[in-house]
């Protein structure tokens, strides 16, 4: 016997009815690696952490992030970074400055070429990291030291993320039109549903008929 559903399309799948053997354990990485996404809601605000996505590569991660984090609300730019490529400091208590409690060590290996790094601060636990700027350095440690010099006075700072700029996949200026139609989709806005008018009209018309 196969499973009978109210939905004929499900019935047509001929799924087994009754006891079924358990599904095999999923292999590692069946759900891919993780990436972290940052979105910019309008030109005048910095990029802020949106959340993670699972994807097989950077380009797909970008598409997933676009769907997941910029589908419903205004967005002008999107960044995606492999989780592995983000260096994270310890977390300070709320109200503190993590740079003060960090022992920023001298870099172990000095790479020859200075390169740009993006710096993200978390102002309060539970909130989202936001982009504070870019530094040029030869290592993550040096980038963190530079970040402390340039942005360390913006306390409270409870946590810092450091990413090489080259590891950030950024939406291009030309990509902006992919968000152009977001505001047109009024049917997914709460304010598009004028329920009260209908209810008032109904009550008005049925004043004299008991429910």
């Amino acid at each position: 016997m196969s499973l009978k559903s109210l939905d004929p399309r499900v019935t047509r799948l001929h799924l087994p009815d009754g006891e079924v053997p358990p599904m095999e354990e999923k292999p590692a990485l069946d759900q891919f690696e993780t990436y972290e996404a940052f979105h910019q809601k309008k030109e005048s605000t910095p990029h802020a952490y949106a959340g993670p996505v699972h994807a097989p590569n950077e380009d797909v991660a970008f598409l997933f992030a676009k769907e997941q984090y910029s589908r419903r609300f205004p967005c002008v730019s999107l960044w995606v970074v492999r989780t592995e490529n983000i260096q994270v400091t310890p977390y300070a208590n709320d109200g503190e400055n993590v740079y003060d409690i960090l022992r920023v060590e001298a870099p172990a290996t000095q790479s020859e070429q200075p390169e740009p790094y993006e710096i993200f601060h978390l102002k309060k636990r539970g909130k989202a990291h936001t982009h504070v700027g870019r530094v040029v350095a030869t290592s993550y440690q040096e980038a963190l030291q530079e970040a402390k010099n340039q942005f360390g006075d913006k306390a409270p700072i409870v946590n810092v993320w450091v990413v090489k700029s080259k590891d950030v996949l950024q939406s291009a200026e030309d990509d902006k039109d992919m968000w152009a139609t977001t505001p047109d989709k009024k049917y997914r806005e709460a304010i598009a549903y004028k329920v009260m008018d209908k209810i008032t009209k109904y009550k008005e018309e049925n004043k004299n008929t008991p429910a």
Partner: protein
Amino acid sequence: MYGGGNVFEATKFDDLQTEDPAKLAEFEARIARGEKIEPTDWMPQLYRKQLIRMIEQHAHSEIIGALPEGTWITRAPGFRRKMAQMAKVQDEVGHAQLLYSAAETLGKSREQMLTDLINGKSKYSNVFNYPAFTWADSNIISWLIDAGAIVNQMANAKGSYGPYSRALERICAEEAFHLKYGHDAVVHLATGTPKQREMVQAALNRWWPPIMTFFGPSDKMSTHTETLMRWKVKMASNDDCRQQFLDMYVPKIWELGLTVPDPNLKKNAETGQWEYTEPDWDEFKRVINGDGPCNAERLAVRRTAEERGAWVRHALLNPKAKYVRPLA
């Protein structure tokens, strides 16, 4: 949508004696100060265990909850409703993604969560084991099940775990549309033709008993529950959530001239509490343990999607990929 009514069972991690007292004190002080816990912070085993369980169940509820509404997309009356229903279902599946990631920061892999769902090891909201017979059933889900979910989610957003709060903030912002969309759809039927009114009343009659179990049975007030409340894992008792739901939505049902199929339902003017017929908790237990009208179908559909997509995921997999937990 959210499967509320988490039953927090005792675990072997209940014994806090095995935890480092200094670290435990620091952890509790942080929560007492109103600070959030972030993934790399030290946390008691019980906290980690219960959060994984709660967030995972929430994620499963979103993804399974999308099935009864998803099946109505093609049959939704009119293009605008198809678009809206599709957008809502997409939101719910997105909620599952957000929540799986939040649970993952605590150390359980997404692969394991999906396997446990399909093999019946982890639960999802019991209401989705009931069928949506008509378009009106789908509307009642969109309105009242989502309404229940929002009561829960708003409370949980104030919880102590950072990644869960962040996910819930986004989820709650999206839910505002679901609630209005669902209400609008129900109002449309309730203020329509006699046939439409009949349809929506029948759907409400079918869904009321599951809705009353949505928040779960009354909590047994144990030291266990008390600990989870102190740690801001459990933010409100199941009964408080149910009362809040009744307070907000029963008047909205009544103003449409619809009736609630419970002759004992009334607000006690003295206590300010709603009185109602005690839900059938035996049925609840039976259904949540697998013996409901749709359990088999829900899991079979989910499993088929996983199995049929496996070759695509396999083909896309980068052999050099290395798993790292999401950061936040």
